[in-house]
């Protein structure tokens, strides 16, 4: 318990340090941003409900696919090591465009692959998959959560999928901390 507390403290210190003060150096700012986004990405898992069929067994891992954001993938791999989401271990899978997305529970598409965003999101539609992006048009293209940076702080907007079109349910508590919630008409 003590160890876990210390570990959690160390992690939080890293996150908070990133949040507390904007760095003058652009590279550092970029690294901090990805560090926070990785942490958020991991934490989203706690507020998402997947259909029971999407897991092979009770202790099957939650798989997070990262596309076009190598730095974030690295951060995320460090964060999830030894951690659980809803009692399940977390696994990070790095993807390139065109890689199959079956078996994923969370899919993050970074700016590097922004050009193919519409295509990727279209493929993910209808799957039991939480899609997260960091593009201005992410939500319009069908992403569920989209990171934004407001006043040097990482925030996110949420567009909850229509209940009939997706099997993923986003907790209202997560909606509560979103910068804004966009309801899709389609």
């Amino acid at each position, binding site marked *: 318990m003590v160890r*876990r*507390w210390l570990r*959690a*403290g160390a*992690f*939080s*210190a890293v*996150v*908070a340090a990133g*949040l507390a003060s904007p760095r003058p150096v652009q590279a550092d700012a970029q690294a901090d941003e990805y560090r*926070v986004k990785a942490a*958020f990405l991991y*934490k989203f898992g*706690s*507020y998402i409900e997947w259909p029971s069929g999407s897991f092979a067994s009770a202790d099957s891992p939650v798989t997070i696919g990262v596309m076009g954001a190598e730095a974030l993938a690295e951060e995320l791999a460090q964060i999830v090591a030894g*951690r*659980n*989401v*809803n*009692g399940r271990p977390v696994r990070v899978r790095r993807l390139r465009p065109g890689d199959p997305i079956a078996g994923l529970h969370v899919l993050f598409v970074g700016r590097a692959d922004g050009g193919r965003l519409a295509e990727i999101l279209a493929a993910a539609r209808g799957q039991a998959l939480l899609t997260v992006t960091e593009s201005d048009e992410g939500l319009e293209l069908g992403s569920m959560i989209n990171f934004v940076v407001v006043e040097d*702080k990482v*925030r*996110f907007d949420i567009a909850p999928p229509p209940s009939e079109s997706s099997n993923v349910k986003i*907790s209202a*508590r*997560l909606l*509560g*901390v979103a910068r804004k919630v966009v309801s899709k008409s389609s």
Partner: protein
Amino acid sequence: MKLPSPRSLRQKLLGMVLVITLVSLIVALGAIIGYDLRAYHRVLVSDMTTQAELLGRTIAPALAFDDTKVAKENLSLLRFRPLVSSAAVYNARGALFATYARKDDPHAFPKLPEADNVRVDERDLVLFKRIVSDGEILGTVYLRADYELFPRVYDYLGIAAVVLIAAMLVALLMSSWMQKIVTRPILAIAQVAREVVGQRDYSRRAVKMSADEVGTLVDSFNDMLTEIDRRTRELEASNAKLAQEAEERSRADREILRLNAELENRVRERTAQLETANRELESFSYSVSHDLRAPLRAIDGFGQALLDDFPEHLPGDAKRYLSRIRSSTQHMAQLIEDLLKLARVSRGPLERRTVDLAQIARQVIAELQQGEPGRAVEVSIWDGMRAEGDPHLLRAAFDNLIGNAWKFTSKSAEPRIEIGALKDHGHTTYFVRDNGAGFEMAYADKLFGAFQRLHSTNEYSGTGIGLATVQRIVHRHGGRIWAEAEVGKGAVFFFTLEAATEAPADERTVAKKAHG
């Protein structure tokens, strides 16, 4: 034994009811208050813990995604819980993340969170609760709520005081009304008892008001009064009777005293008359006896002269008749002599001096032996017998007593006479014992009367005046004389020479000693 203060039964009952009511109320109120305060504490702690958990869960996303604004919004919902005076959320590093404070709250927020705990800090309940999600500590919720235990205690004390006063008043009214049911019959008995004792009127009766133990008491009390009444009457009657009897007795006593006095007077008169008559009689018999001697001497003398001077003229019968005449004459002379002695004993003053009785006894024996030299009698005379008395009279007494012994042992095989004295308790009893003819004890009373002979003159000579003379001598000395005897075995004559103070029973012991 010290009696308790003289309170009436009514007051005691009232006091008892009030004390019991008070104690019961205090215990009941204490229990209720204690239970309620404990419940209050538990409910409050549980409520606040739940509140903190809820808050933690609500605020967890805000913490997770570092959204202070949302956290503040979440916390501000506490305004609907006015009990909570201030609240705060610390992040995982222990830094303040968001705060909430009621307007009136003066407390500063703790700089650092604490581990999970609930405590009472002065008038507040302070609570720290960690927010844990998926095994990770996201932060800590801090709550400070009004802990109203003490105001509650004061409220309760006030309520308890009001309840106590009200209940006591009700109890006072109820019991003062109800205790009459119990005390009225008892007080009625007490009143009757006071009157009975005060007025000594045992005809009073208590009224029975109930059929319970008090009713039984009333019945018993009335029965007791009836019994006392009856006994008092009996006692009074008996007292009156006794008083009457005592009156009668004292009257009888007075009568007896009066009669006694009269009798004494009469006795005195009679005694005086008798004494006079006696003196005259003695004087007369003395003169007669004295004057009778001269003619008797003449008869005897001339009878003797007739025998001496004319022996040849007298036939044998005449001589024998003359002898009989002379013998009778001499006997009569002896009689007269004895009577004169008896008279002399009674007359003349009594002389008192020390007399050696042993010597007198020896003289008497010597004279008797001289008169009958042929007789051999074993005589034993104790030495040192001294007495205070008249020597002539005592000599006369011994003459008679020893003479009797001598005379009545004349037919014994081994005649023996013993003269002695026994001392007992300072009194001396003298005795003369023989083993002669003796006499029947049935006649012991008649021994000392004049002319009372127990043996015929043919058997033993004598006039029958001797023991009367002895008795008179002993009486004149103030003593007593008595005898014991058995026919054929002998007799003992006892006498004393001083007024006997001892009871007659002592005579027996003395007699036994003398015999032994």
